[in-house]
């Protein structure tokens, strides 16, 4: 069995600043967190003596070891040394040319290829996936920017090979994003993918037809991203502080570090709220005492500060459209990728360029890895298999005491499935139970849809709550529901088959789900009332039983007072007044506790305890009774 098991194909977004890995699991792409607990890993590799560090630790030591810490290696992969002159100026490590003229990194006099650096990152992603899956991973789908040429793609593939991965496919990042949004299904479309990440901005125009993607045009800005936005905020804070306190913090590394954290936090917060407080107490000190930084940054202020950065995305978009030979109205879908695309001003810009609301359902930091994992799943054959599975659209259950809907199979349960629950009778010597099968989300039976009913008869006479009636819901792969009820003592069974679950249309399902949401409060109240009534009823029943069973052992005056409380509870239940029922129930509850005490004293058994005491009054609380009564309910515990 195990040797036949296919291993998973993971999806890796090998990014310029951060990388991300995902895998298909049960039909869903799952992003895997690293050992450090983060869902993305910095694309940084560092060398220190014989040690190689990858990801977070490499980033942390960068400043102590800048010449041996390689970041942004993606900017160099598959490129000639003479092509990357401008990039070389932006990095603190040495970039050299090997004998073929390729750009390589020089660390301690040794040449390291960008493929090796990429491989180190891929190994880290592979290990992350392996730790999660608990099995070796050998196959992967890796994404590259749409503008990568053959040489860059081949080099990325080589990086995978060095990492010990069989690279099943190299796919463009915007294609992966489109896959993550499920845009490969349903007709021909033109898609714009707007990717504003940590350090680069890419815009791609894709065309999709019959499941085949074609990149029509790409454009972008290789040095525009989240870090630029952070820097703008930091500068603003420095300026404000200087204005207020006359102190320049720009040379205070510790203060700068705190401001950097505060800037990123403020930026993220302002995507959700319109104003945020930046508080950095004791940021510095002068002769007059400690100084605090307290600023309020509003979203509109942030937007005016970063407007020049946001504006820089416009030109590339227009150029890409022009290169694709399209006008904005020809674009069917716009997708947002990269953390910075969460910023409302960026989304507004996208909207104004393409004249439509962008898609943003999938986490933009993870959408590319998710798409890669989906591609991996398709190649492994996982996705096709999983699509065969369906879910039930609405909850299925039966009616129980007091007209309550007791769910057996919750909505969105994947079928085929089977659920069993044991119920009981609500009255002494009850000869039959009626099983009313319900569909819907409301707690009261009458608000749901009845999709079938049947009787289970000839139940042998027994006190209420004693018979065990097992109700089973079995939904097969075709969505056909089989409901059976079986008296476990006599073995008598009755069942029905309900086809296609009433054939509700989508909008009906939506309405029923929405209704449930709408009536949540009143439903809950009503359900509570029924619960109180049922509890009181059960308590009265137990009290009466105790009075009868232990007639000889209960002092006459106690018996009378209990009987009075029982009558009061009866009256209250009949009246239907919830508060009254509650108070009489509590009275009765306290009163019957005295039975045990009275008997203990009378019997004189000593510390051994009341061996013949009545069942503890609280013991079988919360029993639902009626047509049927729950006596064994695992779900609710």
């Amino acid at each position, binding site marked *: *069995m195990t040797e036949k098991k*296919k291993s998973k194909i993971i999806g890796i977004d090998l990014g310029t600043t951060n990388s991300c890995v995902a895998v298909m699991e049960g039909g869903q792409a799952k992003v895997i967190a690293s050992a450090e607990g983060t869902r993305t890993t910095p694309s940084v590799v560092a060398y220190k003596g014989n040690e190689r560090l990858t990801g977070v*630790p490499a980033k942390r*030591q960068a400043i102590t070891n800048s010449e041996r810490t390689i970041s942004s290696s993606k900017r160099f992969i598959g490129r000639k040394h003479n092509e990357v002159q401008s990039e070389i100026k932006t990095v603190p490590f040495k970039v050299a040319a090997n004998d073929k003229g390729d750009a390589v990194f020089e660390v301690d006099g040794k040449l390291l290829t960008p493929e090796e650096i990429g491989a180190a990152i891929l190994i880290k992603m592979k290990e992350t996936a392996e730790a999660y899956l608990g099995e070796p991973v050998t196959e992967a789908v890796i994404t590259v920017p749409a503008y990568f040429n053959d040489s860059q793609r081949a080099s990325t593939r080589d990086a995978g090979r060095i990492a010990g991965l069989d690279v099943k496919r190299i796919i463009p990042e915007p294609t992966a994003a489109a896959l993550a949004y499920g845009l490969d299904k349903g007709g021909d479309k033109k898609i714009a993918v707007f990717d504003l990440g940590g350090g680069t901005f890419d815009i791609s125009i894709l065309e999709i037809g019959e499941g085949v993607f074609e990149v029509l045009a790409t454009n972008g800005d290789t040095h525009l991203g989240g870090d630029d936005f952070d820097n703008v905020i930091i500068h603003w804070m420095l300026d404000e502080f200087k204005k207020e306190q006359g102190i320049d913090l720009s040379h205070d590394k*510790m203060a700068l*570090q705190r401001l950097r954290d505060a800037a990123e936090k403020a930026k993220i917060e302002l995507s959700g709220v319109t104003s945020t407080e930046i508080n950095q*107490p004791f940021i510095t000190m002068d002769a007059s005492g400690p100084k605090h930084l307290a600023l309020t940054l509003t979203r509109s202020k942030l937007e005016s500060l970063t407007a020049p950065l946001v504006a820089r995305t416009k030109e590339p978009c227009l150029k890409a459209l022009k290169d694709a030979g399209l006008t904005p109205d020809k674009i069917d879908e716009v997708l947002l990728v990269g953390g910075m695309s969460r910023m409302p001003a960026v989304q507004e810009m996208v909207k104004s360029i393409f004249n439509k609301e962008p898609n943003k359902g999938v986490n933009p930091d993870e959408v590319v890895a998710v798409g890669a994992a989906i591609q991996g799943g398709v190649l492994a054959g996982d996705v096709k298999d999983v699509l065969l599975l369906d879910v039930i659209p609405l909850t299925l259950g039966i009616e129980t005491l007091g007209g309550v809907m007791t769910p057996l199979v919750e909505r969105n349960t994947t079928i085929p499935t089977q659920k069993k629950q044991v119920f009981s009778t609500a009255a002494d010597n009850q000869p039959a139970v009626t099983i009313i099968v319900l569909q819907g989300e409301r707690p009261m039976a009458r608000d749901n849809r009845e999709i079938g009913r049947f009787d289970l008869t000839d139940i042998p006479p027994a006190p209420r709550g004693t018979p065990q009636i097992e109700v089973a819901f079995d939904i097969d792969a075709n969505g056909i529901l089989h409901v059976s009820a079986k008296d476990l003592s006599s073995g008598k069974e009755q069942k029905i088959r309900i086809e296609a679950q009433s054939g509700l249309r989508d909008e009906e399902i939506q309405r029923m789900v929405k209704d449930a949401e709408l009536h949540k409060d009143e439903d809950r109240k009503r359900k509570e009332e029924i619960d109180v009534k049922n509890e009181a009823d059960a308590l009265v029943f137990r009290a009466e039983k105790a009075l009868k069973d232990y007639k000889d052992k209960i002092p006459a005056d106690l018996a009378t007072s209990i009987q009075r409380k029982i009558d009061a509870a009866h009256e209250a239940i009949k009246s239907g007044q919830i508060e009254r029922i509650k108070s009489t129930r509590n009275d009765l509850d306290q009163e019957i506790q005295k039975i045990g005490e009275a008997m203990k004293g009378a019997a004189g058994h000593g510390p051994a305890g009341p061996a013949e005491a009545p069942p503890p009054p609280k013991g079988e609380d919360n029993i639902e009774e009626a047509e049927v009564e729950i006596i064994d309910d695992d779900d609710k515990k």
Partner: protein
Amino acid sequence: MTEPTPSEEKTTSPQDPLESLQQELKECQEKYLRALAESENARKRMQKERQEMTQYAIENILAEFLHPIDSFEKALQFAESMSPEVKNWAVGFEMLLNQFKQVLSHHGVQEYHSVGKPFDPHLHEAVEMVATTEYPPGIVVEEFVRGYKVADRPIRVARVKVAKVPEETKIEPIDQGNHHD
């Protein structure tokens, strides 16, 4: 999936219905076992993940408290250069700070000291390098922000200043021509 592919048809024509059914059964069984194994594995993974998530959730909340605690410590550092009166207050506030730290330590969160220890990227984040002869190169000379860990795993690494060789001492031996850099 259930229909024979054209190539199969050619090799085993005419198709034996028994054989094709057997084949189909085999495929179904295989698929069933795979699905079963997958769901079992997913269940195990979920269990593990849930445990980790609970752990992370607690740690994340505790880690958020570290930020105000940092500010608190910073404030107390400033108090050292203040008047005796302020210092007296500071003593009380120091006790308050310790109460916070006790809460953390009850939940297994311990602070660790970094000054004088070799820089370790698994425990420290370097913010600045400083030329000094006071400490050997590669040693942490100052803590900007203290590190905290649960058992051996840091939940927030320390932010530190790391010693490097001062320029003058580095240049001197070269002038003498005795050393290679």
